[in-house]
């Protein structure tokens, strides 16, 4: 009897410390953030002093004021996600099906860039794409870009940087789902009169959809909230929502607006992600 009781309790006992921690330092802060987002400055108070007035118009103000950065965050994140998918899919495919005994080494190589601080690597891109790097001068000589065109401090550089940063997040889930596919199903497709392209479209891609969904989410979510790439590789006209939230907190000490923006970002991501999963889910997922 007592052992049955302890068996029922055991999982809850195991969960307790972790969930207590997450409740205090994850749920509570989010609730608190929601509360902050509808506050207004205290009349005659110091900078940074706010009171709760349930002013939901904060959201509208914040959105209208920063709609450009908003749009940019999502457009950049979508571009980076699509680029990362285009680069990562063949990479994951090659590791899953064409690497033979080098599979483990290649997997380590995918995560290896993580081991160098991502800020250092982002700064390295700034130098690589810079005037003295090895990309711009040859392109100028070949006449592909004009003398006045630069690659750093552009939206292009921001997207390249983000694509690079989140590439392993895209590659690993793709690899995991490709690796689960029985290669015989692809052979069977060829055997049943599908050429390489049709086999990819009808068999490989649908079967790897779980990886595509996971990878794009793992890339899109952090990319949409990122501000480091925009700060290092961008210019004032390529600022993203993250940059705004950061400066609202640290420079302007406008907590309600920062909170409202954070919440709007989270909500927008959640809506997009839900729509996306529903679309991908009903059509192709096993």
């Amino acid at each position, binding site marked *: 009897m007592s052992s049955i009781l302890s068996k*029922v309790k*055991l*999982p809850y006992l*195991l*969960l307790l410390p*972790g*969930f207590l*921690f*997450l409740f205090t*330092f*994850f749920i*509570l*802060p*989010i609730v608190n*953030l929601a509360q*902050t987002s509808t506050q207004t400055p205290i009349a005659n108070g110091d900078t940074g002093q706010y009171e709760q007035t349930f002013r939901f118009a904060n959201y509208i103000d914040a959105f209208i004021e920063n709609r450009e950065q908003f749009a940019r965050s999502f457009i950049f994140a979508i571009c980076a996600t699509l680029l990362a998918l285009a*680069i990562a899919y*063949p*990479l994951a495919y*090659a*590791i899953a099906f*064409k690497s033979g005994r080098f599979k*483990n080494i*290649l997997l*380590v*190589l995918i995560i*290896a*860039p*993580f*081991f*160098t*601080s*991502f*800020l*250092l*690597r*982002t*700064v*390295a891109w700034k*130098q690589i794409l810079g005037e*003295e790097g090895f990309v711009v001068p040859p392109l100028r000589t070949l006449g592909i870009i004009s003398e006045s065109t630069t690659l750093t401090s552009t939206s292009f550089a921001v997207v390249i940087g983000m694509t690079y940063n989140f*590439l392993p997040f895209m590659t690993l889930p793709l690899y995991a789902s490709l690796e689960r596919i029985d290669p015989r199903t692809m052979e069977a497709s060829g055997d049943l009169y599908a050429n*390489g392209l049709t086999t990819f479209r009808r068999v490989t891609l649908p079967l790897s959809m779980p990886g595509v969904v996971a990878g794009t*989410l793992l890339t899109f*979510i952090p990319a949409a*909230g*990122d501000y*480091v790439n925009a*700060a*290092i590789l961008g210019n004032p006209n390529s600022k993203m929502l*993250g940059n705004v*939230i*950061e400066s609202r907190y640290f420079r302007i000490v406008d*907590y309600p607006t920062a*909170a409202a923006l*954070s*919440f709007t*970002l989270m909500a927008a*991501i959640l809506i997009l*992600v839900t729509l996306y999963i529903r679309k991908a889910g009903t059509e192709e997922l096993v």
Partner: protein
Amino acid sequence: MTKVKDATIPTIPLQARLSRWFGRNLIRIYAVFGFTYLFIPVAYTFAFSFNDSGKSNLIWKGFTLDNWQNPCGAPEICTALGNSIKIGLLATIFSTILGTMIAFAIGRYAFKGRSTSNLLIFLPMATPEIVLGASLLSLFLVFQINPGFWPTVIAHVVFCVSFVVVTVKARIASLDPRLEQAAMDLYANEFQTFRRVTLPLVAPGIAAAALLAFSLSFDDFIITNFNSGTLTTFPKFVYVSAARGIPAQANVIGSAMFFLALAIVITGQLISKKTKVSK
């Protein structure tokens, strides 16, 4: 009837061979480009750790070993590194303990509220870092806790726990439940079964989770920036100095971390391969 020894051996035309070789290897060629893209910045960082640059490490000025001989040469840099390592170790210990317990609960037991638990684990991973960092800072401000060392550790545990749970849970799911049944059949009680069979089998998963947690914590900038106040960590040091040029010592530390982590992972793989063979 079976072997026609006198017939000439037909050969396959070169053109057909070439086109099939190309078809088969196209994706490998592509993969080489992919890996090149991944490693260009790493190689760049490594190369510029040998730059005789002085203050700002932007342009190649000549080869030197000075930076490697004197990695703490830049002001503040080793303090920042020390802070990152301390925070990383503490965050790793706490998140691994909490996360492993949760992983066992979710991975081993069917109980009421399991899917809610899964959701609670998933949410921090689905929340943009900036929201995580900002919300925690707001909470600390409400309780008038100053940002600094411990708030940063707590913040890191928050986002590391979920990754630990996912990693350890995957390992637990891949265990054959019959092994535990066999242990019990061989007179091991619940605790002995856990101690002698389950834990050793899950250990590689826990080790991988700890390594992941440390690297996530060590490399984190956004959440740290919100919760560390005046405390400097290595990523913060890099970010702050990026505007006026990063000292080459940062490249030394980045490259050293890269090779150290690579060595740890490869050693781990070799060990696991060896134990697999000896089984």
